[in-house]
């Protein structure tokens, strides 16, 4: 048997109820019960060892790199908690069996409960603080699911979310704290951390680490000012409250304090923070408990109060205080679980939990009432019940601390007040519900529940008495070890019901009398408190979340207006911001390379280019003119390419330009051709500023590059083009050989674009103007005679030219791409001259297939080199000498180029023919020529 089973059994056991979803309820409950019982069996094997002062450990590696391993231990503190968790867990499962109605999904409930149990066990048994955190958050998640169990109720949903948010937040703080501690200690194993205790306390990061850990603990344990979530978690089914909010989850925070006591405690800061928080929480909780009309609300706040008490004890931190704290943990778990169950029984039987509607139930539910009185007395601290003993210890500790110097006296007084309030609300719980006159009408007529339902309460009540009477036999062994684990030194606990007449006893008496008085004066309190109504934490929380959400949405809408210009402006401004510093690093902009002389043609070209660019920008509202200006820009750019020794580029640019302008004119047909002024003056100003900056940056970069000396890899290309690539047109050889992969990518892009455009044009019903912008109807002749004739003549000629350009591309300017565009342009001319239908009749080419085949050919040419054991796209060429024909060159690059050619033709024609098809479909046919 293995310690890990105690955690893993409920974890995987959580699947059992789901697997037996179809089984009857008793079977489900039975199966579920098996799980904690099994765990108990495992546990008992280790109990003797632990009680003897050993610490059984187990470890499985998980993330050694991070220091997170599946390491568990079972020291006294763990044992105490494991016992509580499993023991009360068993009772709760049994209780829940009766509590849940037939409509409730029992499987889900048990499943979540077991999951929770597993995570809780994980926290208390973890030997690795990161692992502990893992389970810590798991309890948050599983408690979220449990609180939200009745998710159709809005209270349950909100309560669950609030609990999760608060404890989750604390958990995250805790993680940070744990990481810091781990870093200081040099590891996350508990022993490592304990060993480094002094180091940690002395470290500069001690304060943040402590605060972060405390944040985690306080949120989990609902300490002030994080107490607000707990009452709202009462929307959970009562078994959940009884389990989570009495015995287990809220105790996790306390456990954390206890666990880190050896590491973090015994400093001024710890004392101040923990003690004061505990004290305030105790008072605040008790006060609100008294005010609540809801039974579970009362219990919830009383839990807050008692947790504060424990917290305060841990803050005081002496050995006796620690013992008191641990003792009270047990006692509180017992009586509070029982009380919650009682409240659940009342609710279950009468249909309400509102104390204003309940009264005089004594006669109807005598057994329940008796049990309730026993456990309530324990809570109130009435002898001979266990609660009395731990309260006495507490009061004693409150008296004995001297940590606030001269002001220390106020602590015992406030402690007494807390005890007083505790008495008062305990009385209220009993008196209001079971006495206070005769039975009044409730939604259901109550009676005592089935025996098995009150059995857990009875058992717990019995324990309360038993511990009260014989504390040493019941718990001292356990407390010894637990306290030893907390304080880090061996402890011998002495407990007895009777201490003799002393100060704590007096305070107890004062508390009881005061409590009765307060209860009698409760109506004044209610009135006093009514003025604070409406300060509901849940609503506050919801409102805050909602408000934040709205604010965030608002903020985003303001930031992200869905305005493309804004996005673009952001990008451009980023460019400016990021680049200006680097450019300012340039000491001299010119790199010192001598400049070429300016000739007149270039000057004129520049003038035209600049003016055309300006015109394009300024005439953008008259779109057709803008296009013409753009085409001037394109033309001059291609001339510039020609001028600066790039004939291939010039040709490509020319033809591409023609095709793009045609595309744009085509598109313009479906667009407004003139638009009114849209942007405001300062927008234009802003845009001009941005544009000038970007232009300036680009110009500076360009100039700096142009004038700096340069050495590149290009010499290699020049040297190897002929010998290695078999062509003299170095640009082309680069394209089809040295960097053929780029070209393959580029034609792929073209093919994808064509496919994408096909997708775009699919099912598009465009807006088709029936007249031009001046309201003039269109000319009647669709295909002018002269145009059709010349286009027809030009097509075969263009093919010849294309073939020529294609074939010589390897050696002289040209190549597959330009050839493809030439053919495409000639075909486009045909489309313009003769129309889609005419073309369709005559050319049944599937452009899409043509395009795919083109890329395929290129790719397969590349693949062909594999046959020769060479990498993809390796080219091969040879010179053949055929009779008559003479010597000529054959290169695989030519095949590749053929692929490029076909792709270009296919893609371009696919784009245009699809475009044309789209409009023709919508156009009524009328007279041609």
């Amino acid at each position, binding site marked *: 048997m293995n310690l890990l089973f105690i955690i893993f059994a409920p974890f995987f056991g959580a699947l059992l109820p789901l697997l037996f979803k179809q089984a009857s309820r008793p079977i489900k409950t039975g199966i579920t019960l098996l799980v904690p019982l099994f765990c108990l069996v495992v546990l008992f094997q280790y109990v003797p060892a632990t009680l003897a002062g050993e610490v059984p450990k187990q470890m499985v590696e998980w993330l050694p790199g991070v220091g997170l391993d599946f390491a568990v231990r079972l020291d006294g503190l763990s044992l105490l908690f494991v016992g509580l968790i499993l023991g009360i867990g068993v009772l709760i499962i049994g209780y829940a069996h009766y509590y849940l109605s037939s409509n409730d999904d029992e499987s889900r409930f048990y499943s979540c409960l077991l999951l929770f149990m597993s995570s809780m066990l994980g926290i208390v048994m973890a030997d690795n603080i990161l692992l502990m955190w893992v389970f810590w958050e798991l309890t948050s998640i599983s408690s979220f699911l449990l609180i939200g169990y009745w998710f159709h109720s809005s209270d349950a949903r909100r309560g669950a979310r609030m609990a999760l948010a608060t404890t989750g937040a604390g958990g995250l703080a805790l993680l940070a704290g744990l990481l810091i501690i781990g870093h200081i200690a040099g590891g996350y194993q508990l022993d490592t951390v304990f060993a480094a205790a002094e180091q940690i306390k002395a470290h500069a990061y001690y304060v943040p680490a402590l605060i972060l850990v405390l944040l985690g603990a306080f949120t989990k344990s609902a300490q002030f000012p994080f107490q607000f979530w707990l009452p709202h978690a009462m929307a959970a089914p009562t078994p959940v409250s009884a389990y989570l909010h009495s015995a287990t989850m809220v105790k996790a925070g306390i456990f954390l304090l206890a666990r880190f006591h050896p590491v973090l405690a015994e400093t001024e800061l710890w004392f101040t923070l923990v003690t004061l928080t505990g004290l305030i929480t105790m008072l605040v909780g008790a006060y609100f408990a008294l005010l609540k009309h809801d039974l579970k609300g009362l219990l919830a706040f009383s839990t807050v109060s008692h947790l504060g008490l424990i917290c305060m004890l841990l803050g005081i931190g002496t050995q006796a205080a620690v013992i008191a704290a641990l003792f009270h943990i047990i006692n509180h778990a017992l009586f509070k679980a029982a009380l919650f169950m009682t409240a659940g029984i009342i609710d279950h039987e009468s249909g309400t939990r509102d104390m204003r509607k309940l009264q005089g139930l004594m006669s109807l539910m005598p057994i329940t009432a008796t049990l309730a009185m026993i456990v309530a007395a324990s809570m109130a601290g009435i002898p001979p019940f266990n609660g009395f003993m731990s309260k006495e210890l507490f009061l004693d500790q409150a008296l004995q601390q001297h940590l606030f110097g001269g002001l220390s006296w106020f602590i015992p007084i406030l402690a007494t007040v807390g005890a007083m309030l505790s008495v008062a609300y305990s009385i209220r719980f009993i008196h209001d519900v079971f006495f206070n006159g005769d039975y009044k009408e409730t939604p259901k007529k109550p009676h005592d529940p089935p025996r098995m339902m009150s059995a857990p309460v009875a058992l717990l009540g019995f324990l309360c008495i038993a511990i009260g009477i014989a504390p040493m036999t019941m718990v001292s062994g356990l407390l010894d070890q637990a306290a030893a684990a907390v304080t880090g030194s061996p402890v011998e606990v002495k407990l007895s019901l009777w201490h003799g007449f002393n100060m704590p006893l007096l305070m107890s008496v004062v508390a009881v009398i005061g409590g009765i008085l307060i209860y009698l004066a409760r109506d004044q309190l209610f009135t006093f408190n009514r003025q604070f109504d409406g300060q509901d934490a849940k609503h506050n929380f919801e409102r805050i979340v909602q408000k934040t959400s709205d604010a965030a949405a608002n903020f985003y809408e303001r930031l992200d207006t869905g305005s493309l210009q804004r996005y673009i402006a952001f990008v451009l401004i980023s460019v400016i911001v990021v680049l200006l510093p680097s450019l300012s690093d340039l000491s001299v902009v010119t790199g010192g390379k001598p400049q070429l002389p300016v000739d007149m043609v270039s000057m004129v070209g520049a003038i035209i280019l600049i003016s055309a660019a300006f015109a394009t920008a300024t005439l953008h509202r008259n779109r057709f003119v803008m296009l013409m200006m753009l085409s001037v*820009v394109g033309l001059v750019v291609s001339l510039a390419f020609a001028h600066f020794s790039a004939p291939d*580029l010039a040709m490509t640019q020319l033809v591409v330009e023609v095709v793009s302008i045609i595309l744009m004119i085509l598109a313009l047909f479906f667009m407004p051709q003139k638009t009114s002024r*849209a942007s405001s003056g300062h927008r234009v100003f802003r845009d001009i500023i941005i544009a000038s900056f970007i232009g300036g940056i680009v110009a500076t970069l360009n100039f700096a590059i142009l004038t700096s000396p340069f050495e590149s890899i290009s010499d290699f290309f020049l040297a190897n083009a002929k010998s290695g690539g078999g062509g003299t047109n170095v640009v082309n050889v680069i394209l089809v050989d040295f960097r053929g992969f780029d070209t393959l990518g580029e034609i792929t892009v073209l093919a994808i674009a064509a496919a994408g455009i096909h997708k775009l044009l699919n099912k598009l019903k465009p807006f088709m103007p029936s007249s031009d912008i001046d309201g003039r109807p269109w000319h009647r002749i669709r295909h002018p005679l002269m145009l059709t004739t010349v286009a027809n003549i030009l097509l075969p000629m263009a093919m010849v030219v294309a073939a020529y350009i294609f074939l010589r591309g390897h050696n002289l300017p040209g190549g597959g791409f330009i050839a493809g565009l030439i053919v495409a342009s000639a075909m486009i001319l045909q489309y313009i001259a003769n129309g889609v239908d005419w073309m369709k009749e005559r050319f049944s080419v599937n452009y899409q297939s043509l395009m795919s085949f083109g890329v395929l050919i290129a790719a397969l040419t590349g693949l062909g080199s594999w046959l020769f054991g060479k990498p993809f796209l390796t080219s091969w060429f040879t010179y053949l000498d055929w009779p008559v024909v003479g010597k000529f060159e054959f290169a695989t690059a030519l095949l590749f180029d053929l692929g490029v050619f076909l792709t270009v033709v296919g893609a371009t024609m696919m784009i245009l023919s699809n475009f044309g098809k789209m409009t023709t479909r919508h156009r009524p046919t009328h007279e041609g020529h």
Partner: protein
Amino acid sequence: METLYSVTVGILTACSVFLILRGRSFPVVVGITMLSYAVNLFLFSTGRLTIDGAPIYGTQETYADPLPQALVLTAIVIGFAMTAYSIILAVRARGEIGTDEVNQQDNSTEGNR
């Protein structure tokens, strides 16, 4: 010459950027196209300017840098594909949305409605 060249490229860029910042799809697409011209000129010039040195092996002693030319060729083709796609996207947007303005008219975003 280099000064003239870079100033021209800069102005071309600035004008395209101005167009790209307009609110309607057509000028933006035209701006993008023009920007691609400017960028091509820029990229081309990274091999430095050479006159009368077309990189045809065996025709002269000094050649222009052929690599940027090849890069620009690739860039032109890709730019063409992109222009084609974006212009037709603009047409489609105009066809379906009914306006060629690139922004939503109301300020709320779809996901948040």
